[in-house]
Protein backbone atom coordinates (compact mmCIF):
# COMPACT_ATOMS: atom_id res chain seq x y z
CA UNK A 1 0.00 0.00 0.00
CA UNK A 2 2.86 2.35 0.90
CA UNK A 3 4.61 1.62 -2.37
CA UNK A 4 1.37 2.27 -4.26
CA UNK A 5 0.92 5.56 -2.42
CA UNK A 6 4.39 6.56 -3.56
CA UNK A 7 3.75 5.42 -7.12
CA UNK A 8 0.60 7.52 -7.23
CA UNK A 9 2.89 10.55 -7.57
CA UNK A 10 5.46 8.85 -9.76
CA UNK A 11 7.31 11.91 -10.98
CA UNK A 12 7.59 13.52 -7.56
CA UNK A 13 8.61 10.25 -5.89
CA UNK A 14 11.15 9.55 -8.63
CA UNK A 15 12.62 13.03 -8.21
CA UNK A 16 12.86 12.54 -4.47
CA UNK A 17 14.48 9.11 -4.85
CA UNK A 18 16.83 10.62 -7.44
CA UNK A 19 17.75 13.40 -4.98
CA UNK A 20 18.50 10.91 -2.21
CA UNK A 21 20.36 8.75 -4.74
CA UNK A 22 22.45 11.72 -5.90
CA UNK A 23 23.39 12.61 -2.32
CA UNK A 24 24.26 8.96 -1.63
CA UNK A 25 26.40 8.79 -4.80
CA UNK A 26 28.49 11.70 -3.53
CA UNK A 27 28.66 10.30 0.00
CA UNK A 28 29.81 6.90 -1.29
CA UNK A 29 32.21 8.23 -3.92
CA UNK A 30 33.80 10.87 -1.70
CA UNK A 31 33.74 8.62 1.35
CA UNK A 32 35.30 5.64 -0.41
CA UNK A 33 37.92 7.81 -2.13
CA UNK A 34 38.99 9.58 1.05
CA UNK A 35 38.92 6.34 3.05
CA UNK A 36 41.16 4.69 0.48
CA UNK A 37 43.42 7.71 0.36
CA UNK A 38 43.82 7.91 4.13
CA UNK A 39 44.22 4.13 4.39
CA UNK A 40 47.00 4.16 1.80
CA UNK A 41 48.72 7.06 3.58
CA UNK A 42 48.42 5.36 6.96
CA UNK A 43 49.54 2.09 5.40
CA UNK A 44 52.71 3.86 4.28
CA UNK A 45 53.80 4.37 7.87
CA UNK A 46 53.76 0.65 8.45
CA UNK A 47 57.12 0.77 6.68
CA UNK A 48 60.23 1.32 8.77
CA UNK A 49 58.26 1.15 12.03
CA UNK A 50 60.77 1.59 14.88
CA UNK A 51 63.42 2.99 12.54
CA UNK A 52 64.53 6.54 11.97
CA UNK A 53 64.12 7.95 8.46
CA UNK A 54 66.78 10.46 7.49
CA UNK A 55 65.94 12.91 4.70
CA UNK A 56 67.42 16.14 3.40
CA UNK A 57 66.29 19.25 5.22
CA UNK A 58 63.27 20.74 3.47
CA UNK A 59 62.21 17.52 1.78
CA UNK A 60 58.49 16.95 1.71
CA UNK A 61 57.78 13.71 3.51
CA UNK A 62 54.53 11.81 3.50
CA UNK A 63 54.67 9.16 6.16
CA UNK A 64 57.87 7.19 5.65
CA UNK A 65 58.65 8.45 2.15
CA UNK A 66 60.03 11.70 0.77
CA UNK A 67 57.84 12.71 -2.13
CA UNK A 68 59.47 15.96 -3.22
CA UNK A 69 63.11 17.12 -3.24
CA UNK A 70 65.98 16.32 -0.98
CA UNK A 71 68.73 14.27 -2.58
CA UNK A 72 71.38 13.13 -0.18
CA UNK A 73 75.13 12.92 -0.93
CA UNK A 74 76.93 9.58 -0.60
CA UNK A 75 78.74 10.73 2.54
CA UNK A 76 75.49 10.88 4.54
CA UNK A 77 75.20 7.09 4.73
CA UNK A 78 78.61 6.75 6.36
CA UNK A 79 77.90 9.67 8.71
CA UNK A 80 74.60 8.12 9.82
CA UNK A 81 76.25 4.74 10.28
CA UNK A 82 78.87 6.33 12.55
CA UNK A 83 76.29 7.97 14.84
CA UNK A 84 76.32 6.36 18.25
CA UNK A 85 73.40 3.96 18.68
CA UNK A 86 72.80 3.30 14.96
CA UNK A 87 72.88 -0.40 14.13
CA UNK A 88 72.54 -0.15 10.34
CA UNK A 89 72.00 2.64 7.85
CA UNK A 90 70.32 1.64 4.60
CA UNK A 91 70.15 4.26 1.82
CA UNK A 92 67.19 4.29 -0.51
CA UNK A 93 66.17 6.08 -3.65
CA UNK A 94 62.42 6.52 -3.74
CA UNK A 95 60.85 7.83 -6.90
CA UNK A 96 57.12 8.18 -7.37
CA UNK A 97 56.39 7.29 -10.96
CA UNK A 98 54.11 9.01 -13.39
CA UNK A 99 54.98 6.82 -16.32
CA UNK A 100 55.10 3.08 -16.76
CA UNK A 101 55.18 1.11 -19.97
CA UNK A 102 55.08 4.47 -21.81
CA UNK A 103 51.71 5.34 -20.26
CA UNK A 104 51.83 8.79 -18.67
CA UNK A 105 49.38 9.73 -15.94
CA UNK A 106 48.61 12.77 -13.85
CA UNK A 107 49.06 11.20 -10.46
CA UNK A 108 51.76 8.79 -9.26
CA UNK A 109 50.67 5.24 -9.87
CA UNK A 110 53.85 3.40 -9.07
CA UNK A 111 56.84 3.86 -6.85
CA UNK A 112 60.39 2.83 -7.68
CA UNK A 113 62.58 2.03 -4.72
CA UNK A 114 66.31 1.54 -5.13
CA UNK A 115 67.85 -0.46 -2.27
CA UNK A 116 71.34 -1.88 -1.82
CA UNK A 117 71.03 -5.58 -2.79
CA UNK A 118 70.57 -7.82 0.22
CA UNK A 119 68.68 -5.19 2.18
CA UNK A 120 65.31 -5.89 0.54
CA UNK A 121 63.68 -6.86 3.80
CA UNK A 122 64.19 -3.35 5.21
CA UNK A 123 61.44 -2.33 2.78
CA UNK A 124 59.35 -5.46 2.23
CA UNK A 125 59.71 -7.19 5.59
CA UNK A 126 58.61 -10.82 5.22
CA UNK A 127 56.62 -10.28 2.01
CA UNK A 128 57.35 -13.28 -0.24
CA UNK A 129 57.87 -13.42 -3.98
CA UNK A 130 55.54 -15.41 -6.21
CA UNK A 131 56.88 -18.89 -6.99
CA UNK A 132 59.53 -18.91 -9.71
CA UNK A 133 60.73 -15.40 -8.96
CA UNK A 134 63.96 -14.15 -7.45
CA UNK A 135 65.37 -10.92 -6.12
CA UNK A 136 67.25 -8.74 -8.66
CA UNK A 137 70.86 -9.51 -9.35
CA UNK A 138 73.26 -7.10 -7.59
CA UNK A 139 74.80 -6.46 -10.99
CA UNK A 140 73.16 -3.23 -12.25
CA UNK A 141 74.10 -4.20 -15.77
CA UNK A 142 71.52 -7.00 -15.70
CA UNK A 143 68.84 -4.41 -15.12
CA UNK A 144 66.62 -6.71 -13.08
CA UNK A 145 63.70 -5.57 -10.98
CA UNK A 146 61.01 -6.98 -8.72
CA UNK A 147 57.53 -5.59 -9.28
CA UNK A 148 54.36 -5.48 -7.25
CA UNK A 149 51.44 -7.83 -7.91
CA UNK A 150 49.06 -5.08 -9.02
CA UNK A 151 51.47 -3.80 -11.68
CA UNK A 152 52.09 -7.37 -12.85
CA UNK A 153 48.35 -7.99 -13.13
CA UNK A 154 47.63 -4.73 -14.92
CA UNK A 155 50.35 -5.12 -17.54
CA UNK A 156 50.19 -8.92 -17.67
CA UNK A 157 53.81 -9.27 -16.60
CA UNK A 158 55.48 -12.49 -15.52
CA UNK A 159 59.02 -13.40 -14.48
CA UNK A 160 61.25 -12.68 -17.45
CA UNK A 161 58.95 -10.04 -18.94
CA UNK A 162 60.49 -6.78 -20.11
CA UNK A 163 59.23 -3.46 -18.80
CA UNK A 164 60.18 -0.06 -20.00
CA UNK A 165 60.63 2.81 -17.61
CA UNK A 166 62.72 5.95 -17.95
CA UNK A 167 63.43 4.78 -21.53
CA UNK A 168 65.22 1.74 -20.22
CA UNK A 169 64.23 -1.88 -20.68
CA UNK A 170 64.20 -3.76 -17.39
CA UNK A 171 63.70 -7.46 -16.77
CA UNK A 172 61.21 -8.70 -14.22
CA UNK A 173 63.09 -11.04 -11.88
CA UNK A 174 60.29 -11.55 -9.41
CA UNK A 175 56.77 -10.51 -8.46
CA UNK A 176 55.88 -9.52 -4.90
CA UNK A 177 52.96 -11.44 -3.47
CA UNK A 178 51.31 -8.61 -1.53
CA UNK A 179 48.08 -6.67 -1.08
CA UNK A 180 49.85 -3.62 0.37
CA UNK A 181 48.76 -0.58 -1.65
CA UNK A 182 52.33 0.70 -1.92
CA UNK A 183 54.20 -2.56 -2.42
CA UNK A 184 51.71 -3.89 -4.97
CA UNK A 185 52.49 -0.84 -7.14
CA UNK A 186 56.25 -0.86 -6.48
CA UNK A 187 59.28 -1.46 -8.68
CA UNK A 188 62.14 -2.59 -6.47
CA UNK A 189 65.59 -2.46 -7.95
CA UNK A 190 69.25 -2.37 -6.90
CA UNK A 191 70.21 1.09 -5.64
CA UNK A 192 72.96 1.54 -8.21
CA UNK A 193 70.62 0.78 -11.08
CA UNK A 194 68.12 3.26 -9.64
CA UNK A 195 70.84 5.91 -9.34
CA UNK A 196 71.73 5.45 -13.02
CA UNK A 197 68.07 5.48 -14.07
CA UNK A 198 67.00 8.54 -12.14
CA UNK A 199 70.18 10.58 -11.69
CA UNK A 200 72.41 9.32 -14.48
CA UNK A 201 75.28 9.09 -11.96
CA UNK A 202 76.03 7.79 -8.46
CA UNK A 203 76.99 11.04 -6.74
CA UNK A 204 73.65 11.14 -4.90
CA UNK A 205 72.84 8.06 -2.91
CA UNK A 206 69.15 8.69 -3.06
CA UNK A 207 66.70 10.66 -0.98
CA UNK A 208 66.48 8.76 2.28
CA UNK A 209 68.42 6.68 4.72
CA UNK A 210 66.75 4.22 7.06
CA UNK A 211 68.62 4.09 10.36
CA UNK A 212 67.90 1.13 12.62
CA UNK A 213 68.68 1.85 16.29
CA UNK A 214 70.76 -0.56 18.32
CA UNK A 215 69.04 -2.52 21.06
CA UNK A 216 68.36 -0.39 24.11
CA UNK A 217 68.54 2.85 22.15
CA UNK A 218 65.32 4.68 21.38
CA UNK A 219 64.34 6.13 18.02
CA UNK A 220 64.22 9.57 19.60
CA UNK A 221 67.77 9.33 20.90
CA UNK A 222 69.08 8.23 17.51
CA UNK A 223 67.11 10.93 15.69
CA UNK A 224 68.37 13.66 18.05
CA UNK A 225 71.97 12.54 17.65
CA UNK A 226 71.71 12.38 13.83
CA UNK A 227 70.28 15.88 13.65
CA UNK A 228 72.93 17.18 16.05
CA UNK A 229 75.86 15.58 14.26
CA UNK A 230 74.91 15.84 10.58
CA UNK A 231 74.12 19.15 9.02
CA UNK A 232 71.33 19.58 6.45
CA UNK A 233 69.30 16.50 7.37
CA UNK A 234 66.16 15.75 9.25
CA UNK A 235 65.78 12.55 11.23
CA UNK A 236 62.20 11.50 11.72
CA UNK A 237 60.97 8.96 14.22
CA UNK A 238 57.85 6.90 13.56
CA UNK A 239 55.90 9.21 15.85
CA UNK A 240 57.16 12.37 14.11
CA UNK A 241 56.33 10.94 10.69
CA UNK A 242 52.82 10.28 11.90
CA UNK A 243 52.57 13.75 13.35
CA UNK A 244 53.43 15.30 9.98
CA UNK A 245 50.55 13.66 8.19
CA UNK A 246 47.93 13.03 10.87
CA UNK A 247 46.58 16.63 10.94
CA UNK A 248 46.20 16.46 7.16
CA UNK A 249 44.40 13.13 7.35
CA UNK A 250 42.28 14.42 10.18
CA UNK A 251 41.34 17.46 8.09
CA UNK A 252 40.46 15.24 5.15
CA UNK A 253 38.27 13.05 7.33
CA UNK A 254 36.63 16.07 8.92
CA UNK A 255 35.85 17.53 5.50
CA UNK A 256 34.50 14.18 4.37
CA UNK A 257 32.28 13.92 7.43
CA UNK A 258 31.20 17.55 6.97
CA UNK A 259 30.29 17.04 3.32
CA UNK A 260 28.46 13.80 4.16
CA UNK A 261 26.60 15.60 6.95
CA UNK A 262 25.49 18.38 4.62
CA UNK A 263 24.39 15.86 2.00
CA UNK A 264 22.42 13.88 4.58
CA UNK A 265 20.83 17.11 5.74
CA UNK A 266 19.86 17.99 2.15
CA UNK A 267 18.38 14.50 1.70
CA UNK A 268 16.43 14.97 4.89
CA UNK A 269 15.06 18.34 3.79
CA UNK A 270 14.10 16.85 0.42
CA UNK A 271 12.33 13.87 1.99
CA UNK A 272 10.53 16.09 4.53
CA UNK A 273 9.37 18.44 1.77
CA UNK A 274 8.07 15.67 -0.46
CA UNK A 275 6.50 13.76 2.42
CA UNK A 276 4.79 16.93 3.70
CA UNK A 277 3.44 17.57 0.19
CA UNK A 278 2.14 14.01 0.05
CA UNK A 279 0.53 14.27 3.47
CA UNK A 280 -1.00 17.61 2.61
CA UNK A 281 -2.49 16.20 -0.59
CA UNK A 282 -3.79 13.14 1.17
CA UNK A 283 -5.41 14.91 4.10
CA UNK A 284 -8.75 13.44 3.15
CA UNK A 285 -7.32 9.91 3.03
CA UNK A 286 -5.80 10.24 6.48
CA UNK A 287 -8.96 11.83 7.87
CA UNK A 288 -10.97 8.96 6.38
CA UNK A 289 -8.65 6.40 7.95
CA UNK A 290 -8.99 8.24 11.24
CA UNK A 291 -12.77 8.39 10.91
CA UNK A 292 -13.09 4.66 10.32
CA UNK A 293 -11.05 4.02 13.44
CA UNK A 294 -7.48 3.45 12.24
CA UNK A 295 -5.11 3.69 15.19
CA UNK A 296 -2.85 6.74 15.14
CA UNK A 297 0.14 4.39 15.16
CA UNK A 298 -1.00 2.76 11.91
CA UNK A 299 -1.19 6.14 10.13
CA UNK A 300 2.16 7.18 11.62
CA UNK A 301 3.79 3.94 10.48
CA UNK A 302 2.32 4.26 7.00
CA UNK A 303 3.95 7.66 6.40
CA UNK A 304 7.18 6.55 8.03
CA UNK A 305 7.29 3.43 5.85
CA UNK A 306 6.81 5.56 2.76
CA UNK A 307 9.76 7.82 3.63
CA UNK A 308 11.79 4.78 4.62
CA UNK A 309 11.10 3.26 1.18
CA UNK A 310 12.32 6.47 -0.44
CA UNK A 311 15.51 6.23 1.63
CA UNK A 312 15.93 2.55 0.86
CA UNK A 313 15.46 2.92 -2.91
CA UNK A 314 17.53 6.12 -3.08
CA UNK A 315 20.20 4.61 -0.85
CA UNK A 316 20.45 1.34 -2.77
CA UNK A 317 20.66 3.02 -6.18
CA UNK A 318 23.08 5.60 -4.73
CA UNK A 319 25.35 2.90 -3.36
CA UNK A 320 25.46 1.06 -6.69
CA UNK A 321 26.13 4.23 -8.70
CA UNK A 322 28.40 5.66 -5.99
CA UNK A 323 30.52 2.51 -6.00
CA UNK A 324 30.86 2.76 -9.77
CA UNK A 325 31.81 6.44 -9.35
CA UNK A 326 34.36 5.50 -6.66
CA UNK A 327 36.12 2.95 -8.85
CA UNK A 328 35.91 5.37 -11.78
CA UNK A 329 37.68 8.00 -9.67
CA UNK A 330 40.23 5.43 -8.51
CA UNK A 331 40.78 4.35 -12.11
CA UNK A 332 41.25 7.90 -13.37
CA UNK A 333 43.45 8.76 -10.41
CA UNK A 334 45.73 5.75 -10.72
CA UNK A 335 45.37 4.99 -14.42
CA UNK A 336 44.60 1.42 -13.50
CA UNK A 337 41.97 0.00 -15.90
CA UNK A 338 38.40 0.01 -14.60
CA UNK A 339 38.10 -3.72 -15.23
CA UNK A 340 40.76 -4.41 -12.57
CA UNK A 341 38.75 -2.54 -9.99
CA UNK A 342 35.54 -4.43 -10.65
CA UNK A 343 37.10 -7.57 -9.21
CA UNK A 344 38.37 -5.48 -6.32
CA UNK A 345 35.15 -3.52 -5.75
CA UNK A 346 34.74 -4.57 -2.14
CA UNK A 347 38.28 -3.37 -1.38
CA UNK A 348 37.50 0.08 -2.75
CA UNK A 349 34.01 0.27 -1.24
CA UNK A 350 33.82 -2.23 1.58
CA UNK A 351 30.54 -4.07 2.27
CA UNK A 352 30.62 -2.66 5.79
CA UNK A 353 30.88 0.88 4.39
CA UNK A 354 27.97 0.12 2.02
CA UNK A 355 25.86 -1.19 4.89
CA UNK A 356 26.71 1.86 7.00
CA UNK A 357 25.70 4.23 4.20
CA UNK A 358 22.47 2.33 3.53
CA UNK A 359 21.60 2.27 7.23
CA UNK A 360 22.38 5.99 7.53
CA UNK A 361 20.31 6.89 4.45
CA UNK A 362 17.34 4.85 5.67
CA UNK A 363 17.72 6.30 9.18
CA UNK A 364 17.87 9.85 7.80
CA UNK A 365 14.73 9.20 5.71
CA UNK A 366 12.94 7.76 8.73
CA UNK A 367 13.87 10.79 10.84
CA UNK A 368 12.72 13.01 7.98
CA UNK A 369 9.43 11.11 7.97
CA UNK A 370 8.67 11.79 11.61
CA UNK A 371 7.31 15.32 11.16
CA UNK A 372 5.01 14.41 8.21
CA UNK A 373 3.95 11.24 10.04
CA UNK A 374 2.97 13.26 13.11
CA UNK A 375 1.14 15.73 10.85
CA UNK A 376 -0.77 12.86 9.24
CA UNK A 377 -1.66 11.11 12.48
CA UNK A 378 -2.75 14.28 14.26
CA UNK A 379 -5.13 15.41 11.55
CA UNK A 380 -8.27 17.14 12.73
CA UNK A 381 -10.93 14.88 11.19
CA UNK A 382 -13.98 17.16 11.39
CA UNK A 383 -12.01 20.08 10.01
CA UNK A 384 -10.71 18.07 7.05
CA UNK A 385 -14.01 16.38 6.34
CA UNK A 386 -15.95 19.64 6.72
CA UNK A 387 -13.69 21.42 4.28
CA UNK A 388 -14.85 19.03 1.58
CA UNK A 389 -18.36 20.32 1.50
Amino acid at each position, binding site marked *: *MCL*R*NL*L*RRRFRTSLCIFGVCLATIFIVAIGATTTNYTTVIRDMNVFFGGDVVVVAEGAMVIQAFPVVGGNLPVSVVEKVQQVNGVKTAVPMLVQFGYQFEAVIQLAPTNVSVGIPPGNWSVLVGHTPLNPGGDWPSPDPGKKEVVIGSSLAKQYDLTVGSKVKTENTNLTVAGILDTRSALLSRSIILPLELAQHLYYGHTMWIGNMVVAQPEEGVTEKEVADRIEAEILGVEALTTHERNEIVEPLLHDIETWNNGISGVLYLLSMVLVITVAMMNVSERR*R*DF*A*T*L*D*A*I*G*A*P*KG*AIFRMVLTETMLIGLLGGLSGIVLGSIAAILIASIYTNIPLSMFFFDLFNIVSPLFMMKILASTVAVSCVAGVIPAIAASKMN*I*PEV*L*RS*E*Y
Partner: protein
Amino acid sequence: MIVKTRELTRTYRLGASVITAVNKVNLEIKEATFVSIVGPSGSGKTTLLNLIGLNDHPTSGKVFFKNEDTSLLTNKERRKIRLQSIGFVFQTFNLLPTLTALENVELPLALAKIPLKPQREKAIQLLEAVGLADRLQHRPKELSTGEMQRVAIARSLANNPCLILADEPTGELDSETGYEIIKLLLSLCRKHKTTVVVATHDERVAKASDVKYSIRDGMITQDSG
Protein backbone atom coordinates in the same frame (compact mmCIF):
# COMPACT_ATOMS: atom_id res chain seq x y z
CA MET B 1 -31.49 3.49 22.46
CA ILE B 2 -28.38 3.40 20.35
CA VAL B 3 -27.62 7.12 20.37
CA LYS B 4 -28.85 9.80 22.69
CA THR B 5 -27.68 13.39 22.87
CA ARG B 6 -28.26 15.84 25.67
CA GLU B 7 -27.96 19.59 25.08
CA LEU B 8 -25.33 18.84 22.46
CA THR B 9 -23.55 22.01 21.37
CA ARG B 10 -20.61 22.61 19.10
CA THR B 11 -19.20 26.05 18.44
CA TYR B 12 -16.35 27.13 16.19
CA ARG B 13 -14.24 30.21 16.45
CA LEU B 14 -13.93 31.97 13.13
CA GLY B 15 -11.66 34.96 13.62
CA ALA B 16 -13.30 37.14 16.22
CA SER B 17 -16.76 35.61 15.86
CA VAL B 18 -18.08 32.37 17.30
CA ILE B 19 -20.26 30.17 15.12
CA THR B 20 -22.66 27.72 16.73
CA ALA B 21 -22.86 24.80 14.33
CA VAL B 22 -24.93 22.58 16.63
CA ASN B 23 -27.09 24.22 19.28
CA LYS B 24 -28.41 22.31 22.30
CA VAL B 25 -29.51 19.28 20.31
CA ASN B 26 -31.49 16.61 22.10
CA LEU B 27 -31.84 13.52 19.98
CA GLU B 28 -32.80 9.92 20.56
CA ILE B 29 -32.18 7.26 17.97
CA LYS B 30 -33.56 3.80 18.46
CA GLU B 31 -32.03 0.58 17.18
CA ALA B 32 -32.88 -0.63 13.66
CA THR B 33 -34.44 2.62 12.56
CA PHE B 34 -33.82 4.62 9.44
CA VAL B 35 -33.35 8.22 10.51
CA SER B 36 -32.99 11.23 8.26
CA ILE B 37 -31.66 14.60 9.28
CA VAL B 38 -32.77 17.11 6.72
CA GLY B 39 -31.46 20.61 6.37
CA PRO B 40 -29.85 23.03 3.95
CA SER B 41 -26.08 23.41 3.48
CA GLY B 42 -24.40 24.88 6.54
CA SER B 43 -27.25 23.96 8.85
CA GLY B 44 -25.00 21.74 10.99
CA LYS B 45 -25.79 18.26 9.60
CA THR B 46 -22.18 17.19 9.10
CA THR B 47 -21.12 18.58 12.47
CA LEU B 48 -23.92 16.68 14.16
CA LEU B 49 -22.94 13.44 12.40
CA ASN B 50 -19.29 13.97 13.39
CA LEU B 51 -20.37 14.40 17.00
CA ILE B 52 -22.61 11.34 16.95
CA GLY B 53 -19.90 9.38 15.15
CA LEU B 54 -17.32 10.31 17.83
CA ASN B 55 -15.14 12.06 15.27
CA ASP B 56 -15.51 15.35 17.13
CA HIS B 57 -15.85 16.52 20.71
CA PRO B 58 -18.80 18.69 21.73
CA THR B 59 -18.23 22.13 23.19
CA SER B 60 -20.89 21.27 25.73
CA GLY B 61 -23.53 18.60 26.20
CA LYS B 62 -23.16 14.88 25.90
CA VAL B 63 -23.42 12.01 23.44
CA PHE B 64 -24.47 8.64 24.79
CA PHE B 65 -23.61 5.63 22.64
CA LYS B 66 -25.47 2.53 23.74
CA ASN B 67 -26.21 4.39 26.98
CA GLU B 68 -22.53 5.01 27.62
CA ASP B 69 -21.40 8.59 28.20
CA THR B 70 -18.82 9.07 25.45
CA SER B 71 -17.32 12.14 27.11
CA LEU B 72 -15.76 9.74 29.60
CA LEU B 73 -14.03 7.71 26.90
CA THR B 74 -10.39 8.04 25.92
CA ASN B 75 -9.49 8.75 22.29
CA LYS B 76 -8.38 5.14 21.93
CA GLU B 77 -11.75 3.89 23.15
CA ARG B 78 -13.55 6.28 20.79
CA ARG B 79 -11.48 4.94 17.90
CA LYS B 80 -12.37 1.39 18.88
CA ILE B 81 -16.08 2.24 18.81
CA ARG B 82 -15.67 3.95 15.43
CA LEU B 83 -13.88 0.91 14.06
CA GLN B 84 -16.15 -1.78 15.47
CA SER B 85 -19.58 -0.25 15.92
CA ILE B 86 -19.97 2.65 13.50
CA GLY B 87 -19.85 2.68 9.73
CA PHE B 88 -19.31 5.92 7.82
CA VAL B 89 -20.56 6.78 4.35
CA PHE B 90 -19.33 10.09 3.00
CA GLN B 91 -20.77 12.34 0.32
CA THR B 92 -17.57 12.15 -1.72
CA PHE B 93 -17.14 8.42 -0.94
CA ASN B 94 -13.64 8.92 0.53
CA LEU B 95 -12.26 5.72 -0.92
CA LEU B 96 -8.50 5.37 -0.81
CA PRO B 97 -7.47 5.93 -4.42
CA THR B 98 -4.48 3.57 -4.41
CA LEU B 99 -6.51 0.61 -3.23
CA THR B 100 -8.85 -1.57 -5.26
CA ALA B 101 -12.54 -1.85 -4.36
CA LEU B 102 -11.79 -5.11 -2.57
CA GLU B 103 -8.90 -3.62 -0.62
CA ASN B 104 -10.95 -0.58 0.36
CA VAL B 105 -13.57 -2.86 1.86
CA GLU B 106 -10.90 -5.00 3.51
CA LEU B 107 -9.36 -1.96 5.18
CA PRO B 108 -11.58 -1.76 8.31
CA LEU B 109 -11.26 -5.54 8.67
CA ALA B 110 -7.47 -5.30 8.47
CA LEU B 111 -7.49 -2.47 11.01
CA ALA B 112 -9.60 -4.68 13.28
CA LYS B 113 -6.88 -7.34 12.85
CA ILE B 114 -9.16 -9.89 11.20
CA PRO B 115 -7.04 -12.69 9.63
CA LEU B 116 -6.41 -12.34 5.92
CA LYS B 117 -8.59 -15.19 4.64
CA PRO B 118 -11.84 -14.35 6.48
CA GLN B 119 -11.05 -10.70 5.74
CA ARG B 120 -11.05 -11.38 2.02
CA GLU B 121 -14.12 -13.62 2.15
CA LYS B 122 -16.10 -10.99 4.05
CA ALA B 123 -15.05 -8.20 1.70
CA ILE B 124 -16.03 -10.22 -1.37
CA GLN B 125 -19.35 -11.11 0.23
CA LEU B 126 -20.08 -7.44 0.98
CA LEU B 127 -19.18 -6.30 -2.50
CA GLU B 128 -21.40 -9.02 -3.94
CA ALA B 129 -24.20 -7.82 -1.67
CA VAL B 130 -23.94 -4.29 -3.09
CA GLY B 131 -23.84 -5.66 -6.63
CA LEU B 132 -20.17 -5.18 -7.37
CA ALA B 133 -18.98 -8.78 -7.68
CA ASP B 134 -17.41 -7.94 -11.04
CA ARG B 135 -15.59 -4.81 -9.81
CA LEU B 136 -13.41 -6.29 -7.08
CA GLN B 137 -10.05 -5.37 -8.60
CA HIS B 138 -11.06 -1.97 -9.91
CA ARG B 139 -9.54 1.16 -8.45
CA PRO B 140 -11.91 4.01 -7.49
CA LYS B 141 -11.03 6.01 -10.61
CA GLU B 142 -12.17 3.06 -12.71
CA LEU B 143 -15.61 3.04 -11.09
CA SER B 144 -18.67 5.18 -11.67
CA THR B 145 -19.83 7.49 -8.86
CA GLY B 146 -22.68 5.10 -8.02
CA GLU B 147 -20.26 2.19 -7.87
CA MET B 148 -17.90 4.18 -5.66
CA GLN B 149 -20.70 4.90 -3.22
CA ARG B 150 -21.62 1.21 -3.18
CA VAL B 151 -18.00 0.37 -2.32
CA ALA B 152 -18.14 2.99 0.43
CA ILE B 153 -21.32 1.39 1.80
CA ALA B 154 -19.72 -2.06 1.64
CA ARG B 155 -16.74 -0.65 3.53
CA SER B 156 -18.98 0.87 6.17
CA LEU B 157 -20.53 -2.56 6.76
CA ALA B 158 -17.26 -4.43 7.04
CA ASN B 159 -17.11 -4.78 10.81
CA ASN B 160 -20.87 -5.41 11.21
CA PRO B 161 -21.57 -2.01 12.79
CA CYS B 162 -24.78 -1.36 14.67
CA LEU B 163 -24.86 2.22 13.38
CA ILE B 164 -24.26 3.64 9.93
CA LEU B 165 -23.81 7.37 9.52
CA ALA B 166 -24.25 8.57 5.97
CA ASP B 167 -23.43 12.18 5.18
CA GLU B 168 -25.23 13.26 1.99
CA PRO B 169 -24.77 9.81 0.41
CA THR B 170 -26.69 10.84 -2.68
CA GLY B 171 -25.20 14.31 -2.99
CA GLU B 172 -22.76 13.41 -5.75
CA LEU B 173 -25.04 11.01 -7.59
CA ASP B 174 -27.58 11.41 -10.33
CA SER B 175 -31.20 10.98 -9.39
CA GLU B 176 -31.53 7.35 -10.47
CA THR B 177 -28.29 6.20 -8.85
CA GLY B 178 -29.15 8.17 -5.71
CA TYR B 179 -32.43 6.32 -5.53
CA GLU B 180 -30.59 2.98 -5.82
CA ILE B 181 -28.30 3.95 -2.95
CA ILE B 182 -31.23 4.91 -0.74
CA LYS B 183 -32.88 1.58 -1.47
CA LEU B 184 -29.63 -0.15 -0.55
CA LEU B 185 -29.31 1.69 2.77
CA LEU B 186 -32.95 1.05 3.56
CA SER B 187 -32.61 -2.66 2.83
CA LEU B 188 -29.57 -2.82 5.14
CA CYS B 189 -31.62 -1.28 7.89
CA ARG B 190 -34.50 -3.66 7.38
CA LYS B 191 -32.54 -6.88 6.72
CA HIS B 192 -29.67 -6.53 9.19
CA LYS B 193 -31.45 -4.41 11.79
CA THR B 194 -28.75 -1.80 11.41
CA THR B 195 -29.50 1.74 12.50
CA VAL B 196 -28.96 4.15 9.63
CA VAL B 197 -28.70 7.90 10.12
CA VAL B 198 -28.64 9.90 6.92
CA ALA B 199 -27.89 13.59 6.70
CA THR B 200 -29.45 14.88 3.54
CA HIS B 201 -31.44 17.55 1.77
CA ASP B 202 -32.94 15.00 -0.56
CA GLU B 203 -36.65 14.83 0.18
CA ARG B 204 -36.91 11.28 -1.18
CA VAL B 205 -34.59 10.11 1.56
CA ALA B 206 -36.64 11.95 4.15
CA LYS B 207 -39.80 10.33 2.87
CA ALA B 208 -38.32 6.86 3.08
CA SER B 209 -37.13 7.30 6.66
CA ASP B 210 -38.77 6.05 9.86
CA VAL B 211 -37.90 9.19 11.74
CA LYS B 212 -37.22 12.55 10.22
CA TYR B 213 -35.42 15.40 11.91
CA SER B 214 -35.03 18.87 10.50
CA ILE B 215 -32.01 20.95 11.32
CA ARG B 216 -31.62 24.67 10.78
CA ASP B 217 -28.96 26.95 12.24
CA GLY B 218 -27.80 24.09 14.43
CA MET B 219 -31.16 23.55 16.04
CA ILE B 220 -33.05 20.34 15.49
CA THR B 221 -36.74 19.52 15.43
CA GLN B 222 -38.45 16.19 14.95
CA ASP B 223 -41.00 16.18 12.17
CA SER B 224 -44.20 14.34 12.79
CA GLY B 225 -45.36 11.60 10.45
